[in-house]
């Protein structure tokens, strides 16, 4: 079996559809901690890209460096063809950032803080546009409310409104749904999809794998400062996703017959289920042979079902393999 890196090399080439091109990016903090190691990554225009990784993997450092909040140690980042250092004005104008922390001005009203953000990014006042954003995010009724009086979920919406205030072409969402309820999470997913339909490229980091599974076109996995995988989500799930066939037995089995013993086949603790793990992409899944053997041994089953690995399981196995 080939090493994982050989099978799934991170994308490094930048093409005409690349809106962000990161090459050879490293970051070592003053403490000596190396947060990013030779990161190469291309984000395609108008895609939803999910960056996954455990705590401290370097997700926020990567985003912060692209956005200009953290100075890179080495490497280069281009945003729509603009170098983030030499041509920072053009690069930053295109980016909106929703940070992980709920950092807001507690004493400002919703309207004022969004207006401030628009101005900060060099845009002339446009009350009609701000009104549209606030209505889209269900914040219109709260426009005169001080931010400190808002709930956590509402504050998260304000952060998004601020990031969208200058009409960015690229939106970074760093853990956008951390600490928000299910309903709001669904609303945000819907909003992200609408933004993409309107031509915005979305890069999100998340701990909720279901979020990436639900929305992302492509998935990147970062671990210990290195991008260890970039892949189309469906291709990734097809490539690495294991399928499992579960057979619900008519009568419990004490033990598997010797010729059925196989690493791919497991008997449940109570003996009522047989779980067979197989590669769905393989020509020879082994299912036919398994069923034939069961019939030969007189093992009957009353029901069966198949399940596929979730992105979370894939993620855990990838990061675990690197540990």
């Amino acid at each position: 079996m080939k090493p994982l890196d050989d099978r799934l090399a991170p994308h490094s080439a930048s093409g005409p559809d690349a809106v962000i091109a990161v090459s050879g990016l490293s970051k070592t903090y003053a403490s000596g901690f190396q947060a990013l190691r030779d990161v190469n990554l291309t984000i395609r225009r108008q895609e939803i890209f999910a960056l996954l990784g455990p705590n401290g993997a370097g997700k926020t450092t990567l985003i912060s460096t692209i956005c200009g909040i953290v100075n890179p140690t080495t490497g280069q980042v281009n945003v729509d063809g603009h170098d983030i250092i030499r041509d920072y004005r053009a690069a930053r104008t295109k980016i909106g950032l929703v940070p992980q922390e709920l950092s807001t001005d507690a004493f400002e009203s919703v309207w004022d803080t969004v207006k401030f953000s628009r101005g900060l990014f060099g845009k002339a006042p446009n009350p009609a546009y701000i009104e549209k954003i606030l209505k889209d995010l269900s914040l219109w009724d709260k426009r005169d409310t001080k931010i400190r009086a808002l709930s956590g979920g509402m504050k998260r919406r304000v952060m998004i409104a601020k990031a969208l205030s200058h009409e960015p072409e690229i939106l970074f969402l760093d853990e956008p749904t951390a600490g928000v309820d299910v309903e709001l999470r669904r609303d945000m997913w819907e909003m992200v999809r609408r933004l993409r339909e309107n031509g915005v490229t979305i890069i999100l980091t998340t701990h909720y794998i279901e979020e990436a599974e639900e929305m992302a076109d492509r998935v990147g996995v970062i671990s210990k400062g290195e991008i260890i995988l970039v892949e189309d989500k469906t291709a990734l799930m097809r490539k690495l996703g294991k399928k499992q066939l579960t057979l619900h037995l008519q009568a419990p089995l004490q033990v598997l017959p010797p010729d059925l013993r196989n690493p791919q086949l497991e008997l449940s603790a109570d003996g009522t289920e047989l779980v067979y793990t197989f590669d769905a992409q393989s020509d020879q899944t082994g299912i036919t042979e398994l069923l034939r053997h069961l019939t030969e041994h007189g093992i009957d089953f009353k029901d069966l079902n198949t399940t596929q690995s979730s992105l979370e399981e894939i993620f855990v196995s990838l990061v675990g393999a690197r540990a």
Partner: protein
Amino acid sequence: MNIHAIKAIYVFEMARMFRTLLQSIASPVISTSLYFIVFGSAIGGHMAEIDGVSYGAFIVPGLIMLTILTTSISNASFGIYMPKFTGTIYEVLSAPISALEIVIGYVGAAATKSIILGLVILVTARFFVSFSVTHPLTMLGFLVLTSVTFSLFGFIIGIWADGFEKLQLVPMMIVTPLTFLGGSFYSINMLPPFWQKVTLFNPVVYLVSGFRWSFFDISDVAVDLSLSMTFVFMALCLVIIWMMFRTGYRLKA
């Protein structure tokens, strides 16, 4: 130049002043009024004139200078420190805005507040003592220059500070003593010769002296020297701020 960004920061900072009007304006005006009552009316009535100016009037420029020095530092340091403290600095750092534009926004607002306050105290002083301003344009020039320079100094403190204690440390431990010892309440000619020389190392002497000249045409040091020293201090502050942004000192990791 990102004019919209400068305006956004400036308006945001000025709004903070109007939100805290009592703290920003009323408090300094009340404390300055107390100075005039104690030093101007109560004690000043028993003091001899200094260079032909009544003691009550003599301390007016010094008291205005004392107030604008402390408020310039306080406003500018608080203005940049708070976004660092709350985390909202991310937005300024990720915006298409240069270091110069950031400084113009924050320092411009802090200086504006100080100038407004200086003029309010000037008017307040007129209720307690009688005086006239001999060189009004020069007085305004010194007021603006001092407010901008010490707002730059406050901006440096705001970036440097990594806690509220440090934010208060420099104004309380250095600036206030220097202001009190910088001729706000006396002419340095009243000091023994040795201390007259020592006090020339205090930059506030030049500010108070120049400002007082614009009121009464009297000064402890030459006006040109006062002006030059203020510009030197301003240039020093600008160089330090430029270095802070260039290295990302306590702003960017």
